[in-house]
């Protein structure tokens, strides 16, 4: 298999998404790198036939691929593995398979089809019960099933669009092994990811995109510092959590209920000073996000916050930011200005749009949101949506509850977000955030809460922990 991408260009209105892209891949695993908005997704969508380019062509083994129709791409051997599994949660694994395979009528010879499917599962050493419903599988397992389905359909070029964001360490390892064995069969893999360590570990060659153009083509061995420098113009040094900061006021986290071994325990109290950044660590699928939300809703557990002053914390002190920005955090069809209006709506009955415009333009500038007032939030990129949510934080002293604040963002956007969050340390009572990325937890927290499964396993100051300890805690090893 050989893929040649020639002069692919695509414009959306005035926005150049892809400009004269040329990539040629002969074998192995190829990484597609670039910050948010660099044009990776557009290119992936063009190859998989979801959108048609304005110009250019793609050759598969020298044959021209008809662009702009997904069926053509699939029939030519292109398989796309989406970031979030696109399957049918209510159907069984087998049924999902039967719907999505090439065979004209798989039910006609069900026994034979079943055997064929089983063979491919065995070949790649994946043990999943066929009869269970797809939604009962973990995200990682669902992705594996999807991958197998693509292989069953004879995919010779597989595109993985940030596939590991939902994987546990174990699953990632298995997936990488499978991918490597695939390349030995001559299958080409295009791997889209933000995570440099994964790319260095897995990929043979890489293309770096920036503002829609190819700026570098590199191959093994990779130098991570070099890649970062090529991807971003300014590589300002990382902001460190301000450790010298002290505040005399304290608050208490009251953990109650069952402990991680299921025993009934007494309430445990932890006292921390105002302005602490508290990272809630957990693996994918653990309840670390639920603990974040719990401080806001008190639905999940009895763990709660108590201030030293014993004043009941008013609801408005909390600012909760869900990880699902567009589904839970923002209002899809409302524009940016209306969001600021909504933010003001708790203070006033009548909306003075001129005043709101003034405040919003200041905030848009301060938080570096690339959008106009009249843009609906569904038109914004993930990073801009996240910055919009941050810009809506209350001005006064708050308790921030940030659910995976940098999920799906590239290094630069993520650092940018953290800069904004950490600048509030001196003002706020506490900043909670959850993450499945232990490096992020370690980088920014003063205090680490480790969650394994549904339980809090450990709460401690970072200075009394090691990174390995945290990894053990979240993995359930105590």
């Amino acid at each position, binding site marked *: 298999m050989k893929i040649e991408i020639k002069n692919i260009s695509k414009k959306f209105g005035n926005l150049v998404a892809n400009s004269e892209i040329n990539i040629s891949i002969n074998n192995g695993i190829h990484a597609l790198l670039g910050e948010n908005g660099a044009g990776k997704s557009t290119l992936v969508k063009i190859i998989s036939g979801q959108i048609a380019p304005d110009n250019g062509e793609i050759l598969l083994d020298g044959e021209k691929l008809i662009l702009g129709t997904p069926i053509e791409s699939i029939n030519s051997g292109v398989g796309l593995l989406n970031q979030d599994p696109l399957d049918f949660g209510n159907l069984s694994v087998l049924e999902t398979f039967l719907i999505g395979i090439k065979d004209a009528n798989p039910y006609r010879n069900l026994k034979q089809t079943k055997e064929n499917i089983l063979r491919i599962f065995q070949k790649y050493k994946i043990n999943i019960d066929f009869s269970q419903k797809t939604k009962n599988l973990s995200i990682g397992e669902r992705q594996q099933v999807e991958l197998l389905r693509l292989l069953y359909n004879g995919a010779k070029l597989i595109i993985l669009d940030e596939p590991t964001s939902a994987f546990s360490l174990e699953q990632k390892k298995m997936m990488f092994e499978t991918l490597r064995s695939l390349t030995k069969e001559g299958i080409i893999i295009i791997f889209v990811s933000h995570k440099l360590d994964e790319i260095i570990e897995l990929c043979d060659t890489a293309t770096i995109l920036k503002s829609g153009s190819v700026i570098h083509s590199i191959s093994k061995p990779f130098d991570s510092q070099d890649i970062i420098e090529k991807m971003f113009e300014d590589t300002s040094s990382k902001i460190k959590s301000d450790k010298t900061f002290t505040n005399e006021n304290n608050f208490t986290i009251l953990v109650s209920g069952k402990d991680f071994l299921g025993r009934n325990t007494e309430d445990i109290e932890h006292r921390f000073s105002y302005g602490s950044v508290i990272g809630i660590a957990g693996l994918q699928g653990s309840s670390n996000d639920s603990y974040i939300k719990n401080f806001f809703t008190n639905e999940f557990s009895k763990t709660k916050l108590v201030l030293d002053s014993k004043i009941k914390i008013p609801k408005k002190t909390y600012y909760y930011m869900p990880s699902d920005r567009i589904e839970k955090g923002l209002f*899809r069809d*409302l524009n940016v200005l209306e969001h600021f209006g909504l933010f003001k709506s708790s203070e006033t*009955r009548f909306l003075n749009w001129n005043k709101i415009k003034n405040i919003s333009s200041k905030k848009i500038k301060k938080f570096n949101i690339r959008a106009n007032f009249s843009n609906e939030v569904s038109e914004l990129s993930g990073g801009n949506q996240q910055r919009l949510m941050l810009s809506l934080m209350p001005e006064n002293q708050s308790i921030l509850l940030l659910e995976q604040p940098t999920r799906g963002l590239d290094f630069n956007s993520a650092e940018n977000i953290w800069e904004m969050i950490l600048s509030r340390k001196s003002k706020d009572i506490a900043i909670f955030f959850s993450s499945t990325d232990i490096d992020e937890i370690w980088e920014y927290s003063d205090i680490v809460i480790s969650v394994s499964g549904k339980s809090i396993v450990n709460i401690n100051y970072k200075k009394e922990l090691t990174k390995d300890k945290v990894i053990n805690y979240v993995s359930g090893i105590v």
Partner: protein
Amino acid sequence: MNKNIQLIQINFIRLVLTLAIIFFVLTLFGTSPISIFDSIIYGSMGSYSKFIRTLIVWAPISLASVALIYTFSAGMWNIGIEGQIIMGAVGATFVARSFFGDTIISPYVQILFALGFGGFWGLICGVLKVKGNVHEIFSGLGLDFVASGIVIYLIIGPWKREGIASTSGTDVFDKASWIPTIGQNEFPLLLILIIFVLYIFSFFIFKYTSFGLRLKATGVNEDAAERFYFSSGKYILLSFFIAGAIAGLAGFSQASGAYHKLVPSISGGFGFLSILIVLICSRNIFFTLIISFLFSALIVGGSQLQIKLGLDHSLIGIIQALFVLSWLILEKLKLEKILLSKIIRSNE
């Protein structure tokens, strides 16, 4: 501002295209679209008295439409609008038959009762939705039937005409209970004032108040409401109460303005028609005002078809349906946007 002008342009092109489709289909029926529209316009606006008749039909439709803007904004399908209109009429009739009936304040007391009855009926839907998690379409449809049942019970039961048990309606109200009019042709000034005040008021609510914005936000994403420190449930309840109350006014208009009595199908299907109108207008208040008038003219003018052209009145139903369907399809196709950009480009 520019965006508004563009919106008007797009809607204008869409209107022209929709009419073209209707003309085409009418031609397929072997009728002459020109003469049909001619007789509709003559029938609805050919004389002052015909115009007044159109206004009397327009009143409940425009009121029900503005009512629905509130519930649609909150993301609710207020199918119960028919029942709310009916209950408003019941409230009005209750006052007209009481000792207020022959006093000059009767219409004003009727307004209060219509607001209350309709609002209460709407609120039931809201409470079932928020507290009981019953889908508003089911409860609304159910409450529509209940409301019709109540009216029939009242007409053949407690409010039946002297000596006759008939479903043709109650006794005609005392003249003092009719909606006040002015002039020989009985221009319903009070009703028209109420409509315009409500429309301007609603425009203000949605444009300049926290309440309106929160209502809109509730409709987009109930989950996110909590993050902005308001409860979507409260706003759903309020939207149903307001919509029900305004729909109640539509019932008042039907009972005391159109029929001057309570009849079994007092809502006349205007509630369902209004749902279509609001859908066509994408909740835009001014478009709603205009389109609801067009539909009323269609209804009133349609009665001329039989007299002048010997065509069945049901043709109006076909025209209405064609209008709605073509409009919605055109909206989905976004044809006008393409056309408009072509026009602008060729001008440049």
